[in-house]
């Protein structure tokens, strides 16, 4: 595990998501008991009450649920200043019950639209991703 400072602010149960991405895997949490997909990850299934959580591997493929093209960033995202303008996405993952993960789009934007099919590339830790390994998305050619 890298020694980077982990970001607070979420539920705080997504460490295995980041560790998987460092290994080149996309894993989403799922209740071991009732099989409900959980994203963001949690420590307990609010549906059935189980404390047992599985991390299931899925393919890094999905569709653009929504997107924006960013032309400005605040001080909090200063590392992205040089990338402006850039496109960020919410990607819907059909293999994880429609869970939506955040990501950055790379490559050709010609077919960028809600519903476009995207595939993820595993990217190593960078300053712009605050030291985290991430999945960067591109639109599939036949979209």
């Amino acid at each position, binding site marked *: 595990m890298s020694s980077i400072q982990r970001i607070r*602010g979420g539920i705080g149960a997504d460490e295995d998501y980041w560790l998987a991405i460092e290994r080149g895997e996309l894993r989403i949490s799922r209740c071991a008991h009732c099989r409900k997909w959980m994203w963001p990850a949690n420590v307990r299934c609010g549906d059935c009450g189980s404390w047992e959580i599985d991390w299931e591997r899925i393919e890094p493929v999905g569709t653009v649920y*929504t997107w924006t093209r960013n032309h400005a960033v*605040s001080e*909090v995202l200063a590392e992205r200043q040089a990338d402006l303008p850039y496109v960020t996405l919410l990607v819907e993952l059909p293999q994880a019950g429609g*869970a939506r993960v955040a990501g950055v789009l790379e490559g050709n934007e010609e077919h960028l639209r809600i519903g476009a099919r995207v595939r993820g590339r595993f990217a190593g830790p960078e300053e712009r991703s605050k030291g985290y390994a*991430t999945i960067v998305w591109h639109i599939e050619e036949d979209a």
Partner: protein
Amino acid sequence: MRSLRGQTAIVGIAQTPYYKRGTSPDSEMKLALRAIVAACEDAGIDPRDVDGFVSYGSENNTAQKLLPGLGTRELRFGALAWTHGGGIPAAVGVAAAAIQAGQADVVAVYRALAEGSNQRLRVAVTQNDTPAQFLVNGIDMVLQRSAMRTRRMIEVDGVPPETLEALAKVSYHHAQNNPGAVAHGRMLTSEAYHASRMISEPYHLYDCSRENDGAAAIILVSAERARDLKQTPAYVLSVPMGASHDGGSREDNHEPYSSVGMIGLARRMWAESGYGPKDVDVAQIYENFTGMAVQSIIDHGFCTAAEAGDFIRFDNLIAPSGALPINTSGGNLADGFIHGMGMMVEVVRQIRGTSTNQVPGAKLSMMAGGPGDSMTSTGLFGSAETL
């Protein structure tokens, strides 16, 4: 049924001038004191008699810090409502509940911001409350996530993008009659709106709220006590806070996705107050970004997504003639932004009849809290006739 309806009233209001962020001559603490003392003077109440303090978000000027400067006789109640702009009507609700439960008699609800004493609001908010998957992917707490939600509202729900422009122009229109508004003297034309730079598509610069230095405060007492004070009371009718089963902190996996979290709150507010969207005379609709306020109007049931193009038009939203005048002091976009607290002051002005964009005979005055907060709140306030 137990209820807060009509049990308490806002009897004092005040705000400091809005300063350009980072330029307040006073510290944040002094701004908070100035607003609270002025609200007490407005109410005819000795500031030493304020025994309860409620704020929201990342307010740093706590009750215990304010006590020595106010000369508080006895501090009996203090609380902070969770989340950001979503916490404003909720803070009033906390204050009202404390009064009704006998835990305090005179409660100040307030918010103070001064960049020189603190850090930029958007930095404070983003750094402390943004999940990793957003920050590592170039997305901050509010701007980009709101922009993405608004895109879906437009492209999937079919809400016309012209509604965003209408929201912005309404705020600037109202600011022209408000000498204290930051945008007073600066009208927003369609040409200027469309020519302004893109920030996060579909948001132009004019779709985004400001940040100012300043403070605003209101004073709440029991309805019984309010009747003996000098100002026309603005009674608290309903101030629900919360989130639905599919809401809360779900990192944009909430459902329905387009919603800004107000659907269930509005249902509770109409039920508790006994009123509905058609009864509201005037509303302050918190706009961090225009598109989020558009969805807030839809969530509250003023119109559906399909009707939004007809309802959310400039002519329909301006005082005094529109069917639903909104953001009548200029709102967060054009009046100024002290984390939305100025809107609560304007809610009361409308009931008193003292707004610079007065809706004639306004009795029912609403404020929607910050749209899209993972927990938010909304509120309906009324004159004595509405009880």
